């Protein structure tokens, strides 16, 4: 190993810098997201009982609501909104892999005859 000057110097242990106002703001944000999630769940179920003309429309809207709910959880509960750049980078790579995995399901149109009708 080369000695490139002083390694990361250990910062002096600081007392937890509590910005009370900031924490309280964060708490309010959590509660707002909670309300959104509850609303989204109720909406999903209500929509299922009312349902649209076509099944796929119902499913599409249900998945859209799930995506919005998921985005709120990731952005606020998991602090991705104000998150660190490196976390975003990790998730970007992960997203590419997952998108590729989901892309594979397009091959279901080559599956047994009469299948893949949802894609046509």
């Amino acid at each position: 190993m080369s000695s490139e000057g002083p390694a990361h110097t250990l910062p002096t242990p600081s007392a937890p810098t509590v910005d009370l106002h900031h924490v309280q703001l964060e708490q309010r944000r959590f509660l707002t997201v909670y309300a959104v999630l509850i609303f989204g769940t109720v909406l999903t179920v209500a929509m299922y009982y009312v349902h649209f003309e076509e099944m796929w429309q119902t499913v599409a809207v249900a998945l859209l609501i799930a995506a919005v709910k998921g985005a709120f959880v990731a952005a606020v509960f998991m602090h991705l909104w104000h998150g660190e750049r490196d976390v975003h980078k990790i998730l970007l790579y992960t997203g590419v892999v997952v998108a590729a995995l989901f892309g594979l399901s397009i091959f279901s149109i080559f599956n047994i005859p009469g299948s893949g009708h949802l894609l046509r």
Partner: protein
Amino acid sequence: MNQAHATIRYTTEIREDTGLYNGKLGMWLFLASEVMLFGALFSAYVFLRLSARDGEWPHGLLNIPIGAFNTLVLITSSLTVALSWTSLKMGDFQRYRRFQFVTLGCATAFLGIKSWEYYDKFNHYEVWLEKPVTAKEHPQLAGHSTDPDAPIASIIGHVEGARPFTTLASLEEAGATTVTIHPDKFHYRLSARQQAERRKAERSGEAETARIAAESHEGVSFDVSQIDRLSAFVPRHGTFFANYFTLTGLHALHVIGGILAFAFLLWPGARMWRDDPERYTNRVEVTGLFWHFIDLVWIFLFPILYLL
């Protein structure tokens, strides 16, 4: 080994090159691998769903109100985890404890409800017949088709004398010569829309066939030789339940893992709060990240399994 090397660094201080403390980086890398694990299973499920012929994919076999309630339970636990972390940020350990008790309560409730759902599925049967019958021949099956003359190839309901995982072979071994089924009001081959319409008609007393099915508590009996196959709603039932149990089972294992981690932090691991409160708070934060991820997975599992 000198003392400086024995100290674990970057437990609280930010590493310059990553901009994170190490625990958080580790948790995010772990979650990235988890996303790919669940992503593979989700995409396999979507692939199988898209490959199913019309009318072959089950509808209405899962209990939507129960699933929705469980969603709310898990969302609530996610909120209390987030609030317990802010409690520690404010230095209020007792408040943190109270929120985490609610979290553990919700997590246990979630598993309890899920177990009840599993138990219910284990005792629910589908019986495939050698030759289709009609609702005209067996009025008890009125709920299984919209047309009394339409062939019914399989019956779902409760099988008399069957226990979880009973098969036709095990019934025959036990000396059964006939199989009595108490049919459900609806068959999954009816679309979700048809089922909903019939429920509505049933409530308003309009549908004659649905009314007969609703009032009939009689079983319908078949000779063993008339039956091709029977299975409870367990993985061997078919593609849907194989996926359902794989996905929800893996998710439930994560919930158990989360409970163990939170319980550790709440009891044996709590000493760290005295010695190094900032590091302890970070541990709660990264465990919370894991918990929110479990919540996130369920947010997608619920519509995909219960509604798709």
